[in-house]
């Protein structure tokens, strides 16, 4: 029977790909018809992306996902960590690192007996694409405080986030022993990664909260330049961000330096501040444009500062505007960055995502900004900037409800290394580098 079938197929193939004009014409006609069919597409066809093979490296002095250009989809997931002993913490760090290495590289998960649950959720198909994924591991203050052997090695500036003036923090959306920042080209890739981590570390980590977010996608510009994405207030967000391609600048602003008040193991790491900032978008949309622009300190359409300039990259000169007649003294961008020599110490690298969750009990949209920023010094960076912002007119339209402060350890050097190794070694735990 099988043989006959094969014969039949062979015969048909001979016809289809047979010699002669007739056969040729037939083949061409068929191909065209198929192409047309494809172009039409079906309702449930998967959307197509040519970016699924984009890949970031997990290895280096710094963890990926900090100076990495922000992709369209991001997430913060916060965990309670069960690992208490050095051995368990090492297993946590090693397992996390090996999962992250695999997920960021992409590949085929092991095939198990079909009587067992599959090794992978399968939601990205049998071969996992990297899709520009980064997973950035950070540690909360409690991670050190709750482990006596780690407490002496806590980063000098790491504290538990305290409520600022305008905050209405929800305990169920705050803090955590360990946070993962997961970002990639698509939300599904992030969810796949989170599920993988949860499945592989059930005994050492329990999920406490998570917030997903997105960034609006823009078409490429003909001149190859880039513009900052917009937040849910409709304003460009990140225009004044320091240049992440400038390594010397990043050494100054983002990375914990070698010499300083910080323990040596933190070198190459960074402080991460996360804030879930609800935006009252209905009210914002009912605010006159001029007032919106005065509150922010920029033109809404272009992102240019007030008083001349046509692009978001133009820099306001506050020294010529001491009274705030051009940019109000309490405008958001003016309070966030004084643009003086002294205020350079307070620069931060922002990497936020917009979030949208549902509807409040009052029937308003629950959406806002999943604010994430990185800095070499949490006190001089986010905490100082936020204190400057306390009382700003924008507060009428925003309400921080969650988040936390974390420290992002340096990156793993190579495949024999893992995130958190330098901390374990500093704590006197003997770590064997496996290759």
């Amino acid at each position: 029977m099988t043989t006959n079938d094969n014969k039949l197929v062979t015969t048909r193939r001979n016809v289809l790909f047979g010699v002669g004009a007739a056969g040729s014409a037939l083949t061409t006609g068929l191909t065209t018809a198929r192409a047309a069919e494809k172009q039409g597409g079906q309702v449930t066809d998967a959307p197509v992306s040519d970016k699924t093979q984009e890949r970031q490296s997990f290895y280096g002095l710094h963890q990926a996902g900090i100076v990495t250009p922000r992709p369209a989809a991001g997430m913060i997931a916060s965990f309670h960590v069960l690992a208490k002993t050095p051995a368990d913490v090492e297993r946590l760090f090693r397992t996390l690192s090996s999962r992250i290495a695999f997920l960021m590289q992409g590949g085929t998960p092991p095939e198990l007996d079909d009587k067992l649950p599959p090794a992978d959720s399968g939601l990205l198909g049998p071969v996992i694409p990297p899709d520009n994924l980064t997973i950035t591991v950070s540690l909360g203050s409690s991670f050190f405080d709750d482990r006596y052997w780690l407490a002496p090695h806590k980063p000098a500036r790491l504290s538990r986030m305290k409520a600022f003036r305008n905050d209405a923090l929800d305990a169920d959306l705050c803090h955590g022993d360990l946070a993962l920042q997961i970002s990639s080209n698509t939300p599904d890739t992030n969810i796949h990664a989170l599920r993988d981590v949860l499945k592989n570390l059930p005994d050492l980590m329990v999920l406490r909260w998570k917030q997903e977010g997105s960034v609006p996608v823009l078409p490429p510009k003909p001149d190859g330049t880039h513009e900052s994405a917009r937040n849910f207030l409709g304003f460009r967000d990140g225009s004044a961000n320091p240049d992440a391609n400038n390594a010397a600048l990043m050494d100054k602003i983002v990375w914990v330096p070698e010499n300083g008040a910080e323990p040596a193991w933190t070198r190459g790491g960074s402080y991460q501040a996360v804030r879930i900032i609800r935006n009252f978008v209905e009210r914002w949309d009912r605010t006159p444009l001029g007032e919106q622009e005065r509150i922010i300190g920029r033109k809404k359409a272009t992102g240019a500062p007030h008083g001349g300039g046509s692009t978001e990259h133009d820099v306001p000169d506050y020294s010529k505007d001491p009274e705030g007649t051009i940019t109000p003294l309490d405008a958001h961008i003016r309070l966030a960055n004084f643009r003086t020599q002294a205020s350079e110490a307070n620069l931060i690298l922002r990497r936020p995502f917009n979030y949208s969750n549902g509807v409040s009990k009052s029937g308003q949209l629950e959406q806002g900004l999943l604010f994430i920023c990185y800095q070499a010094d949490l006190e001089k960076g986010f905490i100082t900037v936020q204190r400057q912002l306390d009382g700003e007119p924008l507060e009428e339209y925003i309400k921080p409800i969650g988040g936390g402060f974390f420290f992002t350890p340096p990156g793993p050097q190579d495949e024999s290394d893992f995130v958190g190794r330098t901390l374990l070694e500093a704590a006197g735990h003997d770590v064997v580098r496996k290759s």
Partner: protein
Amino acid sequence: MKLKLVLSASLLALAAAALPRMANAEVAPLDLVQPIADYKIYVSEHAEKLVADTKVFTDAVKAGDVDKAKSLFGSTRMSYEAIEPIAELFSDLDGSIDSRADDHEKAEKDPEFTGFHRIEYGLFSENSTKDLGPFADKLMADVTELNKRITDLTLPPEKVVGGAAVLMEEVAATKISGEEDRYSHTDLWDFKANFDGSRKIFDLVRPLVEKEDSAFVTKVSGNFDKVDTTLAKYKTADGYELYDKLTEDDRAVLAAAVNTLAEDLSTLRGKLGLN
């Protein structure tokens, strides 16, 4: 006599299912006969205890004895929670015995909301037995019917073995939050029963798995022990502390143990060659 009947029933169940292909363990289908027969006895004993305890509980409700009814609520439910994977096979009864207010569109006011949690709502939220009489009668009738159906039931092996994980999934999905017994906060009683029910199944098939994968057995037992140790901290003279006494840390310990047990026990069917 009874044991013999149970045994033949289980044999039939095994024969009815296509002989399972072996996954990674060399477990002969007949090896499962005895554990399943033993489990049937465990289930029957709990069903009978459920009927007896529910009688005392519903009598107290109907007599208007709020305090006595309250004191019996946590312990009465334990027999049900321990055998939930089997009890749930009868979805009509599971709905009327153990559904929660949020399973119903009109929540506590929904006429379909009956059973343990409806009575719990009256006793603990309204501190009264007023209007609970019909719910008490219905609960008594339902558990009696459940017991009868269980007696007649042939236990499907994959449901029994899979039940160990199902109990952990229940805890992980809806109980670790303390939402199950939201009026009485007797959740730790349920936890204990769920864990005991899961461990019973594990212990019954343990000798079959141990030969193939002793590390697995050690790990699972270790997590069951961790749960027992944690729950023991909340033991009182006549049961368990209220759920709000559970510290954040211990809740995380339980959550991690439940998640890990759910992961590990999800492989139990496959390890025994069951589909």
